[in-house]
């Protein structure tokens, strides 16, 4: 049972009661993410300070409140939003609600904690560089949205880190915590009426600030790609054992009618063991262990990456396969049987994911922030039901263009490596 409501101070709330569950998952969403920072890494750094104590409790006391009853608490920063996530056994839900309230209503924001957070971010940046998949995705975003805050790494980079100072992080956080920027999503074992009353009572006291941060209206120039040849192409060689391939595209925003088509297209290519890229790269040729695809829709744009961790000698062959499969989707109608299997699988996976409180709470908060309205699992299922094979072909022709494509190679690849010409889609129109 789902219910959406607003508090008088502007906080948006979404609740889903799952009476059989043993837990409650709370996702407190802030409409500020990495792209809204003045410097790369600034928002990430500011948000991490939320878990470094409040005016009422130290960081360790807060962890003890939640973890001491078996719960978890964390902060996740995305490009366009931040989630403060708490998952807690149902009998202790009051503790979870009160703790989240304390984090946003009474943050401490102390300068001594700031240095520790900065140090931790340096360690996290090194860990990201060491992870072939994360590094590939990071470089692919930068390559698809060059010289923009949207494309910059969420964690920032080692070069910029020293220039971030405490006061700018503090200011960003204080402005982000205005009730007009908050969404509370709760899923789990509670009675809807009682829980709604608890949320109203607990979060109703947060007052709006005059200096509240507001996301700027969308300006498409922010995402304008500077002049460059296409497909964009970046090699970031290092001493990893594997080569990592990322083929990425800028795609439609989350509310665009084509976005569910894109989700299904991604599933056809990478969503299961029968998907095209998985089959061609891994099963047929044994070139990779990991083949993966990720489509992300934001309020104003979208990003899609196809990824494989490859044997260093197999990079050219794998790139040809990527290109062939993309061309095939552009040129031919997906056979009905293949389409139906992929659709059934995606629907099954979504049903499984939304069974559990934690992923559901995160998803509902993210949808509210990006779509500016409640959007439920059932809404997505209805959209997917409408998708037809011809939609896949049309969307592929519109979005999978070489002027929209970026290829990233990370790890065990020669810096002089050149991609094959098979990535020049729309051959009859010539290449820039």
């Amino acid at each position, binding site marked *: 049972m789902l219910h959406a409501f607003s508090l008088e101070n502007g906080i948006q709330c979404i609740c889903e009661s799952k009476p059989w569950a043993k837990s409650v998952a709370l996702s407190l969403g802030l409409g500020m993410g990495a792209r809204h920072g003045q410097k790369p890494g600034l928002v990430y750094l500011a948000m991490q300070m939320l878990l470094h104590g409040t005016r009422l409790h130290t960081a360790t006391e807060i962890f003890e409140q939640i973890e001491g009853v078996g719960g978890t608490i964390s902060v996740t920063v995305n490009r366009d939003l931040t989630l403060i996530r708490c998952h807690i056994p149902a009998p202790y839900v009051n503790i979870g609600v009160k703790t989240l309230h304390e984090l946003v209503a009474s943050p401490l924001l102390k300068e001594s904690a700031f240095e520790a957070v900065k140090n931790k971010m340096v360690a996290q940046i090194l860990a990201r560089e060491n992870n072939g998949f994360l590094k590939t995705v990071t470089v692919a975003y930068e390559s698809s949205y060059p010289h923009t805050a949207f494309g910059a790494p969420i964690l920032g980079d080692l070069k910029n880190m020293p220039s971030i100072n405490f006061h700018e992080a503090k200011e960003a956080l204080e402005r982000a915590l205005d009730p007009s920027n908050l969404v509370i999503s709760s899923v789990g074992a509670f009675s809807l009426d009682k829980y709604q009353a608890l949320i109203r009572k607990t979060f109703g006291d947060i007052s709006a600030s005059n200096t509240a941060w507001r996301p700027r209206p969308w300006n498409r120039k922010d995402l304008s790609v500077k002049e460059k040849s296409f497909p964009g192409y970046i090699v970031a060689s290092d001493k990893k054992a594997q080569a990592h391939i990322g083929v990425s595209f800028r795609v439609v925003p989350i509310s665009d009618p084509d976005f569910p088509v894109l989700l299904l297209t991604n599933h056809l290519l990478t969503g299961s063991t029968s998907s095209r890229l998985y089959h061609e790269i891994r099963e047929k040729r044994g070139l990779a262990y*990991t083949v993966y695809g990720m489509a992300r829709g934001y309020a104003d744009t979208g990003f899609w990456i196809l990824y494989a961790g490859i044997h260093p000698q197999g990079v050219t062959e794998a790139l040809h396969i990527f290109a062939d499969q993309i061309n095939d989707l552009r040129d031919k109608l997906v056979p009905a049987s293949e389409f139906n299997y992929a659709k059934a699988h995606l629907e099954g996976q979504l049903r499984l994911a939304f069974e559990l409180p934690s992923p559901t709470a995160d998803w509902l908060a993210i949808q509210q922030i990006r779509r500016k309205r409640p959007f439920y699992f059932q809404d997505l299922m209805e959209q997917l039901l409408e998708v037809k094979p011809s939609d896949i072909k049309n969307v592929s022709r519109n979005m999978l263009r070489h002027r929209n494509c970026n290829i990233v190679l990370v790890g065990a690849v020669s810096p002089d490596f050149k991609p094959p010409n098979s990535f020049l889609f729309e051959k009859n129109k010539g290449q820039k």
Partner: protein
Amino acid sequence: MSVKKPDENVILHRLNNGVKIVVDNMPHSESVTVAFAFGVGSRYETDDIAGISHLLEHMFFKGTKTRSYGDISRQFDKLGALVNAFTQRDMTVYYAKAPYENFHGLIDLWADMLNNSILDANEFRKEREVVLQEYMRYLDNGPALAYSKAYKACFPNSPLGRPVIGTESSIRSITRDKLKRFWDEMYTANNLIIAVVGRVDSEAVISGIDRAFGSMAPAATARYNRIAASGADKIDRKSNHVILFPDDKEDTHIAFSARTLSAKDPEYASLPLTNAMVAESKRSPIYKALITDRGLASRVSSDFELFPDTGIFILSASVSPKHASQSIKIIEEILESYTENEPSREMLTLSKRQVAGRLALDLEDTFDLAVWYIQMYFRHQKLLSPRSFIEDLQGVTSSMVYRRFKQIFSDRKMYLTVVGNIPSNQVAKITLKRSDES
């Protein structure tokens, strides 16, 4: 056939051929998870076939007498199933999680795969390359590598100390014939346990599995060499307890490890509490000192694994290279402090609530609960329901946990492994105070 009910909604059933079935009916669930576990893993392997359990796991997806690889994949897709498998040191688990109404379809497919796979020679050659890529990915994964080296430090002369995936040369030396022999020897009815968790009818589950697996042959399976408390497997306490594996990674991964008690020990439930107090959570003194107060590490965690004959405790962290020796000293001092006094009653109560609460969260998922039953069965050699485990947990005293602290963190039993970027100016500073005293 025999039936036991160790818990209200849980049934343990044994088919005539020895296949064990656990059914936990969760009437409100949207999903069902079916997990098939054979009691075989890397500790059953000899050096020359290291990794064969894992490679065989991959091959069961590659086609049967009546279904090609593509047929299998598409049928799982049609069922909306999340399908995968994993190999551990002592078990290999195959599973599928799907909308509950598709239960019988899952059983039919898995029965065909596990009984009628053809281990096609061409598919085998390709899949071995896939596994080699998985091995390369493992080499690039600093935390996994440090974890694996920690095992090696604690069990240097045993297959238990080897990486589950094997080595590049052992994977390359595995042939299709070796694979077939291993399958025949280890995949027997009495070595199989099937866990079904979700919205199901228990009787229909048992009769469906009986039809699909009732004719599987029972046979004596190979056994692993038990980890001895003394003799060839004894840890050499005189050797250096600090082991360095420098490579080209950006960051540094450290792991403290020590052998501990086995799953069959009456005090086994003291281990989860030890873990909860040490570094499983952000409230721990090690997390506070390393991350909250100083930001020296990107992650810190602790974990343990219990087997029927031994156990291991591992505390690991990923740190900036320049902070490696400082981080190690901080951790070592905190670990040493655990050996000074018994944990307080308040700390014990808090940790019990933490472990029980976390278990409730984790076991909401039909997949996690199915894997729980399987692991408990192989390791404790009996069906341990979550409720029985909580009862065992409540019986743990402060002195039992204190014995774990002293057993793991003192008496020079602990090993330190360091993997990744180790700057030359850090090498000399990386020491373990107590192990270097002699």
